[in-house]
């Protein structure tokens, strides 16, 4: 009885391969995106320093461990894929002050992760200016058929963006599950938020329903990421 079970292990199943605008991509279960042929890893919306900003702005003292957790998971993704290039797709820091005020060990940690790779910080609405972390700061970046920017635009072909923190919910025999999700249609790809302290915007929300084309599908993150027609 146990023998006939499908072995689902981290190594075998936690990526979902798909083709987008001619590029062979891997959606990772963690919410990161990997492009093997270009050895390029993309993560979006890290929101580092969110807890600090909440304390500063709304006097909430949330557990101050979100930077550690986000960086741990980012390091795991780097170890898993060993990319030559990393793109942080905007809102990497919850705001510029939060970025500047990151504790020393977090700063060193980020520097360590960046070492030996091309590292591109795309600007987001939360972190519109450059920070002193090195790497390249850009509003957008194009490689081959793909263009990387923070917020999706109307008519760009091959656009990879973040910003919306998409999540998708589906019903499984009467049970609803909801997970951060990649959204993909023929022209654009939206990444889920990678940061630990991030919520999600439902794919059925007006904003995402109008943004994505009719043929869009969602790739649910998790131990075994998989694609479903985008719930609207």
């Amino acid at each position: 009885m146990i023998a006939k079970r499908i072995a689902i292990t981290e190594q075998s199943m936690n990526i979902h391969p798909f083709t987008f605008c001619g590029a062979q991509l891997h959606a990772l279960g963690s919410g990161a995106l990997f492009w093997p042929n270009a050895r390029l890893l993309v993560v979006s919306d890290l929101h580092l320093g969110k807890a600090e900003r909440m304390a500063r702005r709304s006097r909430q003292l949330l557990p101050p461990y979100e930077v550690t957790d986000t960086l741990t998971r980012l390091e795991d993704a780097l170890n898993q894929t060993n990319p030559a290039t990393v793109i942080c797709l905007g809102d990497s820091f919850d705001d510029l002050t939060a970025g500047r005020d990151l504790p020393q060990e977090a700063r060193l940690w980020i520097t360590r992760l960046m070492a030996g790779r091309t590292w591109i910080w795309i600007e987001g609405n939360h972190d519109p200016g450059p920070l002193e972390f090195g790497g390249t700061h850009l509003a957008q970046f194009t490689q081959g058929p793909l263009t990387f920017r923070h917020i999706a635009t109307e008519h760009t072909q091959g656009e990879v963006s973040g910003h919306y923190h998409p999540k998708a919910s589906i019903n499984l025999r009467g049970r609803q599950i909801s997970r951060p999700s990649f959204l993909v249609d023929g022209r654009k790809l939206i990444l889920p938020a990678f940061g630990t302290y991030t919520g999600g915007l439902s794919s059925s929300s007006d904003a995402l329903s109008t943004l994505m084309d009719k043929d869009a599908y969602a790739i649910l993150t998790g131990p075994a990421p998989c694609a479903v027609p985008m719930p609207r």
Partner: protein
Amino acid sequence: MTQLPAPITNWFANKGWQVHPHQQAMLDASQTPSTLLIAPTGGGKTMAGFLPTLADLSENPRGGLHTLYVSPLKALAADIKRNLRTPVDEIGLNIRIEDRTGDTTYTQKRRQRVDPPHILLTTPESLALLLTYEDAPRIFDGVQRIIVDEIHALAESKRGDQLVLALSRLQSIAPDLRRVGLSATVEDPQGIADFLACHPQPTQIIEADPGPDPDIQMLETEEAPPWAGGGGKYAIPAVLEQVRQHNTTLIFHNTRAQAEIFFHHLWLANEDQLPIGIHHGALAKEQRQKVEQAMTDGALKAIVCTGSLDLGIDWGDVDLVIQIGAPKNVKRLVQRIGRANHRYNAPSKALLVPANRFEIVECKAALDAVKAYDLDGDPRARGPRDVLCQHILNCAASGPFDDAELYNEVKTAGPYADLTRAEFDACLEFCATGGYALRAYDRYQRLLQKDDKWQLRDPRAAQQIRMNLGTIIDTETLKVRLKSRRGPGSGGTPLGEIEEGFAATLSQGDTFLIGGQIVKYEGLNEMTVQVTRSPSDKPRIATFMGTKFATSTQLSERILRIFQQDNWPDLPAHTAQWLHLQRDRSQLPQPGRLLIESFPRDGRSNTVVYGFAGRNAMQTLGLLLTQRMEEQGLDPLGFVATDYATLIWGLEPLTDPAPLFDLHNLREGLETWLAGNAVMKRTFRNAAITGGLIDRMTRGTKKSGRQATFSSDILYDTLRKYDPDHLMLDITREEAMKGLIDFGRVEEMIARTQGQIDLLTLPRVTPLAAPLFLEAGRVPVKGLAEERLLAEEAARLMSDADLPEAVVKPKRWAVPY
């Protein structure tokens, strides 16, 4: 014996009334620091509470606040205002009586702070809120008495803990304050007395004559109750007949959903058009007030209701109480019965309507218990520390405080009498810095020590603290309104609220029941569910959480004893037959053994554990067992728990139960399991909001966009991972263990059965198991079975949708780098 002033004595004489002995006893005790009156409904309890106030104000007229009255319900405060006004005016006393609740206008509230009335009627939350203002000492300076009505109900929840902490504050402001508690019949008067007392002072208990025994029976119906399900629809003709024969009937249900369904079917069968209304906590205020007014006017023959009518609003002419569904708890049953016949010294009349055959046995057990005066209840637990954290923040909002003084003050509150200084300091530390092992917020501390006193770092935080005040945490609900013809922008008639999770499953055209009407879902507009009236007669049902109480230990024991009888001459024949059938097909559960049934159904393997440990403990057992079954590769998919059994369904059958019920394994499992389950996360959320870690979700913050906010589940997971000893996790564990987890009763069950497990593998569902398949509240198991189903479903959806080739099917694949 204390004499009443002449005007009051004359008033009694003019009315032809006499002062009841317990009212006199309350007068005699008017100088006692703390008094608890236990009296049945209709015993002039409220008057007994207020008489000393009226006497004092009659003899010594003065300005300023004299008496505070606190009740658990806003409606009750309004009701008392009306009912007190009449005698005060008739006696000719110059007394100002006002209420102050969440519904009081801003202008009125401001004026009350400047110029308080003699008697202020309020709720625990409104009182706590008043105490957060800097001018609290001026407002409460001269207050003489505080009357806590329905104290037995308040003592059952965190609202009570918040109230007695507020009392401790109040007592420091007004040292002469005398406390009065008014309670219905309870199993442990001393427990309530300790709860009310200003420790170490005692509370004097005064017990009124309990009146004659109630006239209570099971309702006899022509049709037998169904094998399974709830709601008691089968009994509708018999219930209508009873309504016809009585002046006014209260028809109690255990959940809102059941009340709605029953009400709907009642009206379908109500050929005489008897005026019958519905009342429950999820209905819009306007809807509830309409029913309350109709009831006060004597315009209704019956009200279908839930616990929202448990408490003492005086409905006048109620002469019958019908309880649909088993009462679960004898004490509450007795209190509900008391709602019939508000005349003192007349027996209350009540009928029990079991919803299915199992409940016949449960009702029989309850009747036996009522006749034996065998009330049930658990001793009150220690005061929860999340409420203490909020109290500390509330105190900080009103002004700087000294930690030692506050600690001593808190210890005068009954539930916190044995609070250690270390526990207090941990709460204070949490309020000040967040209390994390990693000190991260030195710059943003909430509380600072300045000149030896603690105060808010940012005085603007006081407003935030007030916004978050209270211990009632709403489930996420959406308002339901009839769609206005003038377009979506203008508000249509409000009908009530439904849970967000339920709203999410609705698509346009779906129908559901609310407030007794069938409505059609039209869409969502700015967090409001828009509906239209629907001519359909087959609604989907609004799913309300509704508190589900666990059947008490005492009642469960009585049920098991009934099962042991050779035959059941005092039960209806159909029920006796059913029990015999269960005995033939399987077994009846026995007190000293644990019965487990295993059978296939709908392509799944089902396991039923008859633990009789009450709903919450059976739920916990379900969580623990499914976790072990997951480890054993049985792929459990979910479970549902009732008071007597847990049903688990999965992909593989259970064959070796013994290791699952090893107490050591269960305890170990409990620790691991505490990590990830939904009950803990919900408990954490409640503690985190109450304790002030996260802000309450208001409609405004909700509207401002979801992606900015994130679930408290993430905070729970983060704390578990990086700060497992954090105060909020400690509180969550403690809270969950006593309430929703109720592991104590799981341990009790294991001790009771001592490894005597009978696993019966059967070809199909058994008579006793059948009702379980219709139970609401199914809990999914987030295990590997979910990934299996997800992969299957995704494949099916993608092929159904005929999506472009771009999607490569997931395949087994090894990392090449």
